[in-house]
């Protein structure tokens, strides 16, 4: 906290204002005569001469104010910034035809970053009310429609139906992967926490994480393609049932052989469960065709099958690690007392260990969820759909606005998921008294 002209300046607020002021000197918008033509940058001073000074003053006010006032100034800054953006889009586009486009530039993003940091600083100071001005100002801006002339919005208008579908697909893919990661990961975490002899579980999870996502997709494609064309659905199901029985027998004889058997069958089961869960949750219909190769039931070499498998495998590590850490964090005294009082191992687990480990498990879910939302972007590359579709199309076609159409929702989704689960974690911690 430094003193500037008698006002206290916090480092975060100072950073926020610094970013905002820097943004004023950078181009805010890029004007392009058509979707794919290169753009000409324009700073805010080129379409307004007086209001940017007011904005500058507002940035200084946000830096030097505290508490609720900081929230007010931030809200005002957000409003004015948004209004200026709207003005700029109007002014730049008016002499051109319908095909001209205006895209956000460096100054636009830097201003947003400055606002984000500013709100973070205000929240950190403990004033929750300060945050109210943010959504309020945003709501006003949206109602005014200041962003509607910007490139990404126009893309959204053009692609609205597909956008909704791909958004839905993105969410269903991520959700399916996270659900499967939990179903698989929680037992694995419990196993890992049993003792030091199971540390290989964590090592295996870490290894999975190091495989680059594209490489993993690439590896799975030919394998799944062959399998899905050759094997019939009923055969696959029978194989899994038989495999489960053999596994039980083999476990008593040789653990290593059992695991070796379980691995490919487990992966197959995972793929099938993932594809069908995704079909249940997502826009595409669920198809189950007996007496036909797997690919008729939606399991193919490309598309949802390899995508959901890879996503689940990536989401495993945060879940397993957090379940493990959560269980290890249970106070040893509580365990000893529980055992000594006559709790069976199951009772000890369900009544003592799991409730106490739950906050960390939720952290694992949060990590897995935000991670998965991000990686699902790559799923579009192998035909599984999702918001990555727009990013890829935009990159291929040289249309940066389309890239933004894909990228911005993904970022917002991840942030939203993170915030929701973080809050849920806090509530849970309070209820459990830990």
């Amino acid at each position, binding site marked *: 906290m430094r003193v500037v002209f008698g006002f206290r300046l916090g480092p975060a607020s100072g950073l926020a204002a610094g970013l905002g002021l820097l943004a004023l000197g950078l181009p805010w918008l890029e004007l392009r005569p058509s979707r794919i033509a290169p753009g000409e940058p324009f700073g805010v001073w080129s379409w307004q001469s007086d209001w940017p000074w007011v904005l500058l003053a507002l940035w200084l006010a946000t830096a030097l104010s505290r508490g609720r006032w900081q929230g007010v100034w931030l809200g005002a800054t957000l409003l004015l910034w948004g209004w200026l953006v709207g003005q700029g889009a109007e002014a730049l586009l008016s002499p051109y035809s319908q095909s001209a486009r205006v895209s956000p530039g460096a100054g636009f993003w830097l201003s947003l970053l400055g606002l984000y940091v500013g709100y973070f600083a205000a929240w950190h100071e403990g004033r929750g009310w300060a945050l109210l001005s943010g959504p309020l100002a945003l709501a006003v801006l949206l109602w005014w429609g200041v962003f509607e002339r910007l490139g990404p919005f126009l893309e959204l208008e053009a692609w609205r139906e597909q956008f909704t579908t791909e958004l839905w697909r993105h969410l269903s893919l991520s959700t399916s992967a996270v659900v499967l990661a939990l179903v698989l990961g929680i037992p694995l975490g419990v196993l890992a926490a049993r003792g030091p002899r199971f540390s290989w579980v964590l090592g295996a999870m870490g290894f999975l994480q190091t495989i680059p996502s594209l490489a993993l997709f690439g590896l799975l494609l030919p394998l799944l393609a062959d399998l899905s064309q050759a094997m019939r659905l009923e055969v696959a199901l029978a194989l899994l049932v038989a495999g489960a029985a053999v596994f039980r027998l083999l476990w008593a004889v040789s653990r290593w052989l059992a695991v070796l058997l379980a691995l490919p069958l487990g992966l197959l089961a995972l793929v099938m469960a993932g594809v069908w869960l995704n079909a249940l949750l997502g826009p595409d219909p669920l198809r189950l065709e007996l007496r036909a190769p797997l690919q008729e039931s939606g399991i193919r070499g490309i598309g949802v099958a390899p995508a959901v498998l890879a996503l689940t495998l990536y989401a495993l590590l945060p879940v397993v690690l957090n379940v493990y850490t959560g269980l290890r964090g249970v*106070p*040893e*005294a*509580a*365990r*000893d*007392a*529980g*055992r*000594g*009082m*006559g*709790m*069976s191992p199951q*009772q000890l687990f369900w009544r*003592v260990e799991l*409730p*106490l480990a739950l906050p960390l498990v939720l952290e694992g879910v949060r990590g897995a969820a935000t991670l998965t939302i991000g990686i699902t972007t790559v799923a579009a590359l192998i035909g599984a759909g999702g918001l990555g579709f727009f990013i890829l199309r935009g990159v291929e076609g040289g249309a940066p606005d389309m890239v933004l159409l894909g990228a911005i929702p993904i970022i917002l989704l991840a942030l939203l998921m993170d915030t929701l689960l973080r809050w849920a974690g806090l509530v849970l911690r309070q209820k*459990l*008294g*830990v």
Partner: protein
Amino acid sequence: MIRLEQVVKRYGDFEALRGVSLEVDKGQVVTLLGPSGCGKTTLLRTVNRLIEPSAGTVRIGGRDVRELDEVELRRGIGYVIQSIGLFPHMSVLENVAVVPRLLNWSKPQREARAQEMLAMVGLEPRTYAGRYPRELSGGQAQRVGLARALAADPPVLLLDEPFGAVDPPTREHLQDEFMRLQSQLKKTVLFVTHDLDEAVKISDRICLMNSGQVEQYDAPETLLRNPKTPFVQAFLGPSRTLLRLSRVALDGLMEPPDGHHPKATIPHTATAREAFSALLAYGCRSLGVTDEAGQLVGLVRLEALLAEASEEP
């Protein structure tokens, strides 16, 4: 009630228990006393099968503990540990009701019993039932631990340094509470401590251990009067006579006052040790003994105390 027959426990090459034999009668408090590492906690934990002996037998009520399912066994034994081990995510009431719940008592039964137990250990149920372990002081938490162990009314109690984690004044209170409860409930108790004063205060018999073996197993007065081995003598220390006197009441040492007016008095509830301390403080050879109303009811002479303290055969 509890019988340990030649119990041995080996960890690799190290012998934590080297053939310990012990018998605890019903309704008695037996303390396992000794320095760190002597095996007292290990021995305690063989009784509820948290530790399985390498050799030897543990019997409760005549039955070998290995015959019973270990989980069933433990539900019939109260267990209190030094670190208490209250469950942080459960309220005080839920903590106390854990064993009744394991025994499938109905909810009203459990809650009523838990409240009864809290009152018994001196915690007002209305105030404490809804609190959580993090809101309790050390002494309060330890009382809850005790209440929890007593909730299902087990005939046997195992206590592993239960009062070790609190400050001395609280510890004294807890010891007094425990003795009060024991006089009411008459449980069979195995108590582990390394504190000689504590052991002398609360036990019916003391089992002094060293390096996995029993050095001496006697009532406190006998132990303090007749240490059998050099280790016992050293462990009891040079003040053992005074310690022994702390268990002697004044009734047997008093004479009628006979018109004497002694310089100083002490209440009749005092111990011989306190009388001795008072005699030293006042520098006199006799003390008056008063009743609750402050009336002189007897006289204690230095000679009587010395006779009591003497170890001459």
